[in-house]
């Protein structure tokens, strides 16, 4: 089974002297909710940074969507329409007829679309429409269970199946086979994929070992630089900035279930760092694809979609993620569960806490890492979620409930009943 979800990041340079306040008003008008293929979407304005030679601001349009890509682009164009035109007209080289000219629009998108470095999908095979109707299915079953109790001594599975079949709006669950593959199939499929990739990882590993000596030398230098800058750490000037940033982001992070995170970091100079990061991305992307296909990413069960996208000729690194819960818990998970992988990526960016051998220290230094992460964060100007009331784990449980309604092995009945 092929991949089922994709990511789009259009990073287009904004016209000289554009008005941010004007743009911001228009951003909100883009009707993502009318697009049936969109899981999550966001607009972010990347400010220029003359220190690293990026003079101009850019606009990022990012979506996580159901494949095929063509259909998503068509929908983006058709549903986005005039509202999307009004926004993208702020960008350079946007075709004058906008979405009305399909060819030119697609050319614009493809020209500015930036590939991701590494991409994590928690719920592959789950399309937006399936997620939404499985949510309704579960709610109806739960309500039936509440109203029709007590259930001692009854065959819950058979009765639930009968109930679903009797409801015209839910009958599809009994009739249509679920689009998600059976869990055993997944296991087998990814075992094979994993084997096929082992050789590639071996090559990357050899390179990493080879480069470690040089890397250690770089890290030593970076540590000294960091410590010099850290002099300002307990500084009230920095504190005032930090407070301001916290207030700003806190307003974005008051969504009930899922929240967006957008980080923009400056890459450390040198080709070597770029090569290292390329290798790390390859490993993480493969791991996300072939190891962590069950919903979690290295023990973090709360990430819907996350990806790194190098922007501005790889001078900067953009991280966009949709996670469940609070910033504090998400970052806590980073530190507790995945500090090595994150250190391997972000240690290639400026001001990251000191590291050893690419993966050690760094993000495991809780307080320093959290402070760094806040420093990197930028505003998510517009954020859209198709199912803002569902966590990753909810979506997966709902799909398993549905699968159980369609077909259920006898030995799994107890397990299925616990999902309810």
């Amino acid at each position, binding site marked *: 089974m092929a991949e089922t979800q994709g990511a789009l990041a259009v990073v287009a340079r904004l016209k000289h002297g554009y008005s941010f306040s004007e743009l911001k008003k228009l951003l909100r008008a883009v009707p993502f909710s009318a697009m049936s293929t969109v899981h999550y979407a966001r607009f972010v304005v990347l400010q220029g940074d003359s220190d690293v030679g990026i003079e101009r601001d850019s606009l990022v349009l990012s979506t996580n969507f159901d494949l095929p890509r063509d259909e998503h682009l068509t929908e983006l164009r058709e549903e986005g329409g005039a509202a999307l035109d009004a926004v993208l007209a702020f960008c350079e080289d946007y075709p004058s007829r906008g979405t009305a000219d399909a060819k030119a629009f697609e050319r614009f998108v493809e020209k500015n679309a930036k590939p991701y470095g590494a991409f994590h999908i928690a719920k592959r095979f789950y399309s937006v429409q399936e997620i939404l109707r499985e949510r309704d299915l*579960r709610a109806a079953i*739960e309500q039936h*269970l*509440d109203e029709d*109790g*007590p*259930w*001692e*001594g*009854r065959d*819950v599975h058979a009765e639930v199946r009968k109930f679903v079949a009797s409801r015209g709006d839910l009958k599809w669950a009994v009739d249509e086979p679920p689009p998600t593959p059976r869990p055993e199939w997944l296991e087998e499929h990814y075992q094979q994929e994993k084997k096929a990739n082992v050789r590639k990882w071996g090559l990357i590993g050899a390179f990493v070992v080879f480069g470690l000596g040089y890397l250690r030398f770089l890290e030593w230098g970076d540590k000294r630089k960091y410590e010099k800058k*850290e*002099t*300002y*750490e*307990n*500084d*009230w000037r*920095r*504190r005032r900035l*930090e*407070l301001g940033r*916290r*207030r700003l982001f*806190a*307003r974005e*992070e*008051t969504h*009930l*279930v899922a929240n967006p995170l957008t980080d923009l970091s400056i890459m450390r100079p040198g080709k070597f760092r770029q090569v290292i990061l390329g290798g790390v991305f390859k490993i993480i992307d493969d791991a996300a694809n072939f190891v962590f296909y069950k919903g979690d990413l290295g*023990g973090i069960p709360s990430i819907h979609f996350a990806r790194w996208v190098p922007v501005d000729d790889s001078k900067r690194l953009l991280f966009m993620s949709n996670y*469940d*819960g*609070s910033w*504090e*818990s998400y970052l*806590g998970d980073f*530190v*507790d569960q995945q500090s090595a992988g994150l250190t391997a990526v972000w240690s290639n960016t400026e001001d990251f806490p000191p590291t050893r051998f690419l993966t050690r220290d760094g993000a*495991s*230094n*809780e*307080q320093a890492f959290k402070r760094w992460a806040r420093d990197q964060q930028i505003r998510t100007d517009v954020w859209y979620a198709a199912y803002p*009331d569902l*966590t990753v*784990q*909810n979506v997966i*449980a709902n799909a398993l409930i549905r699968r159980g309604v369609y077909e259920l092995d006898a030995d799994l009945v*107890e397990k299925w*009943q*616990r999902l*309810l």
Partner: protein
Amino acid sequence: MKKSDEPVVIDTSQVQGVLLSGHGKLNDARFILLRIDEPLAAKKWLADVRPEITNGHHRPEDEAVQIAFTYAALVELGVPRQTRAGFSVEFEEGMTAPHRSFMLGDSRESAPENWEWGGPKNEPVHILLMLYGKGPTELEALVQRHRKLATDGGLSVVIERETHTLFDGIGYREHFGFRDGVAQPRMDAVPSHELAHRRGAMREDAHGNTIKAGELLLGYENEYGHYPVSPAAGIDESRSLPEKTYGRGGFDLGKNGTYLVYRQLEQDVYGFWKALHDKVGGDSKDRDYVAAKMVGRWPSGAPLVKAPDHDTPGMELDDSFSYISDPKTADPHGEKCPFGSHIRRSNPRDSILSPDVDRAIQLSKRHRMVRRARPYGLPVDEKFRSEEVIEKGSDGASRGLNFICFNASIARQFEFVQHTWCNSPKFAELHNDPDPLIGEQTRLDPKGGDFTIPGQPVRRRVTELQRFVTTKGGAYFFMPSLAAIEYIAKVRDMTPLQKHVAFFDTDNDGIISIGDTYRGHRRLGISQFYSALFSMIINFALFFQTKGKFMQIKVENIAMGKHAFDTGIFDDDGMLDEKVFDELFSTATGASGEPSDEDVITRPEMNAFVTAGGDRGRPNPGGLPHWFSQRETELIFCLASDAKATVDGKDEPAITRRTLKDFYRGDLFPKIERLLAYKRVGGFGL
């Protein structure tokens, strides 16, 4: 690296007693919230009260006094901002910042706008004074004495919270009738007064209940193996703070102190039981069963994993259980103690956080806190019988819990548990189940939250739950060590000289290295060459005078480094004597009449000003020091010249009286830096 068998020792004579024991024997207590009206008098009061503060060395038998400060109090009392920057952000922002209210679930009737104290519409709260007494009369005497001391000491009472314990012969209860405060983490540290009887480190207990001292106290290693960020004082007038041994230097203001979270939680006891009664269709046995499932313990305290079906005597204070690893209490599916129950979600122990038991314990240890809550108001029924509560009906009386907990990181401990575990309707893969006791029920669904009791063949669900616990007040406090109290009582705003040099001491460790001086000059827009030159000269000239190490200036002793340039216009306390300043200024410039801010001084006049010496100044020694002071004059003119004067028909740079005064007050350099940052211009020509 410390050897593992070497115990971590906590100096109990420094830690405030309530952190180590809840003063349970002292049944009555009063929490007095104070506002500072006159900071100077308040500091005197603090110095007077300090000897009465109870430390952790003995368990008090008759009375106890504890004290804690809000961030605003530290501002009022003059703790310098460089030092305050070392406190945590959440402490500085306070409990009522809008995004914090969202996290904590303080919405609707719990919104800070409706609070009795601590909210935006209430008087500001600065100091929490906790007074404990053996009985009501003893407490009353203590309260009266302290109330008088405080009101005479430049403070006024914002509100007084009466508290007591609900002791039932075995332990403590809360108003809904359940055992409270059983599960408390232990510190893997030895109290200093017990050191003599103990050998080796504290042993880990079977259920992962022992956590690192740095989770509860600043100044010790935490569960991550790091030290919690702790505020540092560059100057310690009281000479009581220990030196900071980790991170950036200075004196450790945080060590042996911790953050205190105080929330007044009003409980609608009748509402809680009546709603549950109606939900289960009036079956009183089932009602008590569901309530126990919601809590995770029976009213007596018996944990559900040990007594799943009915309340069992003899386990009242039992906290030695786990959810997965112990086969006798194993409950992987929550069929004994539901995942959504209050005790399982606020301390998941070895479950939920990770499929691996040891990992789960390791993770849960990063979110523990010590609770020292005390109820207020009279119980509806002395024996805490739910049927009595329902029978009596609502009495409209105010009762609830003064929730108090201690943690080294408010964000990672208290707020995390409240938001990510208790308020979250999605905890443990649930769908719409906030904490049935304290959670914000309407978070996801305006109709209310659910409570799921796992079971066979299928779960049982209680739906559309409402919240019967309302937040009525609250604030974040810092509970300092006894040494830190002494520091706060003596802290002064910095003298102009100290301010002047503190500009260079960005890391606030009280020492200005040659690098600090260099970077300070660079921040003023001076070129690399001159910055290097000046920093070498300045550090060389001052390091031995301030008794610092080679080429390091000690900010504290800067007054010893008075040189010719000071011209004797500082009084003995190091404050600017404006009269002397004006006299000198007028003499040097030959101006007559009333001093005006717009008067200007030129470079030769400035040299005269410097050499005049003033009342207490030393005569101009001539020679090298004189040459230095002339160079300094040039520097000041380069940096701060803000006027022109006509001398012999030529325009000469000059400085106004206002700017020069700023310089002598120590405010000039920060002003220049702000100006530079604002304009983003590249220097003043040097």
